[in-house]
């Protein structure tokens, strides 16, 4: 199973991503990440416990739409389809800062190592590289490229001037 960076350490990824679920009955056992639209449409039938349920928000989704679901899931994953598409950075801040989600916020797909720190600052705490060739251990180092920041972020809400 591919490695995952979770809160700064390497872990096995115990979640299954179901990108195109057909119906609730055929969902597998265990921890599953399901598309936001699917969970929205089937919320009354889904009986998966909070510990085992996560949603996947796509770049074109409105992150605010996840609001009614956030107390029913323990992971919100944002899928990066192309690392140049930075919508996930704003979407994660909305989920973290505006909707107050405190569980795992995961980046999946085609982001790159050099984005890890900015992703973390936007509220991501888990990283699942879509590219299997990434040296995840080496990538960890990029999380500490900077130790000081000018502006408020999810990880450090106080701007630098409050520490000067």
């Amino acid at each position, binding site marked *: 199973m591919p490695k995952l960076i979770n809160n700064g350490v390497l872990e096995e990824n115990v979640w299954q991503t179901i990108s195109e679920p057909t119906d609730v009955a055929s969902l597998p056992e265990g921890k599953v990440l399901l598309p936001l639209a699917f969970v929205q449409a089937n919320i009354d039938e889904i009986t998966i416990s909070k510990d085992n349920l996560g949603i996947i928000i796509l770049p074109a989704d409105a992150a605010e739409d996840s609001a009614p679901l956030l107390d029913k899931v323990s992971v919100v994953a944002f899928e990066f389809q192309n690392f140049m598409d930075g919508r996930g950075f704003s979407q994660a*801040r909305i989920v973290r800062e505006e909707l107050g989600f405190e569980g795992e916020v995961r980046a999946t797909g085609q982001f790159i190592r050099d984005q890890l720190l900015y992703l973390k600052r936007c509220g991501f705490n888990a990283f699942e590289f879509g590219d299997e060739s990434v040296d995840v251990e080496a990538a960890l180092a990029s999380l500490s490229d*900077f130790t000081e920041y000018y502006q408020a972020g999810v990880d450090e809400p106080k701007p630098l001037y409050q520490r000067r």
Partner: protein
Amino acid sequence: MYVYDQHDAKILSERVAQFRGQTERFLAGELKEEQFLPLRLQNGLYVQRLAPMLRINVPYGMMNSTQLRRLAHIARHYDKGYCHISTRQNVQFNWPDLAEVPDILAELAEVGMHATQSSGNCIRNTTSDQFAGIASDESVDPRPYCEMIRQWSSFHPEFAFLPRKFKIAVTGADADRAAIRVHDIGLRVKKNDAGEVGFQVFVGGGLGRTPVIGQEICDFLPENDLLTYLEAIIRVYNLNGNRQNKYKARIKILVRALGIDTFKEKVTAQWQRMKDSYTKVPGEEIDRLKGFFTTPAYESLSETDSTQAIASFAEDNTAFKKWMDRNTQQHKVAGYSAVTLSLKPTGVAPGDITDSQLEAIADLADKYSFGEVRTTHEQNIVLADVKTADLPELWQALKDNGFATPNIGMLTDMICCPGGDFCSLANAKSIPIAEDIQRTFDDWDYLYDLGPIDLNLSGCMNACGHHHVGNIGILGVDKKGKEFYQVQLGGQAGNDASLGKVLGPAFTREEIPEVIKTILDIYVNQRTEEEHFVDTYQRIGLEPFKERVYAKAN
């Protein structure tokens, strides 16, 4: 001027180390070309026709003499002995070696300079009025706010992968010298009737392929709310901007597609949710930033005494008088003047400057202007705080170094992009056209009689040379592999920002000087006393110009 403390220095050195690592990974084949691309761009590095181009930020155009000397050193040791002042007040090197760029950045970091976010799809260097803080028509000094934006936008984690680049300009004066209406966000800082400071905010301006004049989105935004409001605008843009087609990706296209009212509704809704976040700037921080832009130790001088002191010199010396009329500017402090050094002598690419010239400017800045200079978006350099009584002496020194061409604001003080000589996107050369025009119009009496005219030149529709907002704009176009030039008339960049109109079919390089001559003849014949070129154009319209130019051509 803002002074880096240990925090700024630390962030910068961490950035240099980060980019050094990225460059090494790229050179070792560990980082793919397309992945390295945005990383190098956000460190100022383009790959160009002949070599990489490195763009160094000059935050809102302010530099000190130490920084100038460091640029001179870099030009000498890592480049071919010169650099270039850009139309967004930055400095560009045309010939650095990719493997040496981390060393260059480390040298810059030592003097508090960097190339962070000077290109790429992120928030770029904030630009401003080159006369900020000294202009007599200014109500609020924009620089503390520029610095506030610089710090907030530098390494902003959310906005490093926007749909497209994002440029902000700020002015605090009545006359807009920062071209705020052709920026993604343009800010005018002002005071309301109660004496409170706030911003008039314009959004969705820009040049490039689809030139658009920015529209007002807010008429008075309290100063404490500036950053949260910018964050709201850019978040709406980040989430909704076009990501399929890079030619439709700028915020101007989004604003136009939604309409300013709908766009404003979205921004307001977003802002309501974040306006009281940690990003809201308290008054104490604004005061702290203001503390960096205090007035230098001006002597208390009398304006009349100062003017009298140089009056006789000016009387005996018409060249000096002409230079003073064109290249110096009134200062809000009695007995002081702002001096613009022309980087537009005939035969030099507009905005180019050599290593030894940079050092000469550093020395002059130390001697005459509190050790500081400013770059202008017209690609010149300003010594902002010169004692008026020192002008004769300074003029001599400027002449010796090639900076005293008395053409500021005149036809030959052109804005010009690097064009086909350097740029891989070019349709046509631009620097040689600028030179043709300078050589054709070499009669000073004629130029002065013409009065102020902005002539702007770009080598392709990306419009780096701002041709849309030149009173006369020249655009290089490609027709079946040959270079041609389209002429536009009537553009303006300031308060009455407007886009030029195309005169008609494009011309060859050889035809251009004659075409410009004809256009100027019509102006001279039709103008009323006191009318500048644009005024006459606005009164009589494009037709008379078109008729004569093409009648002649046929």
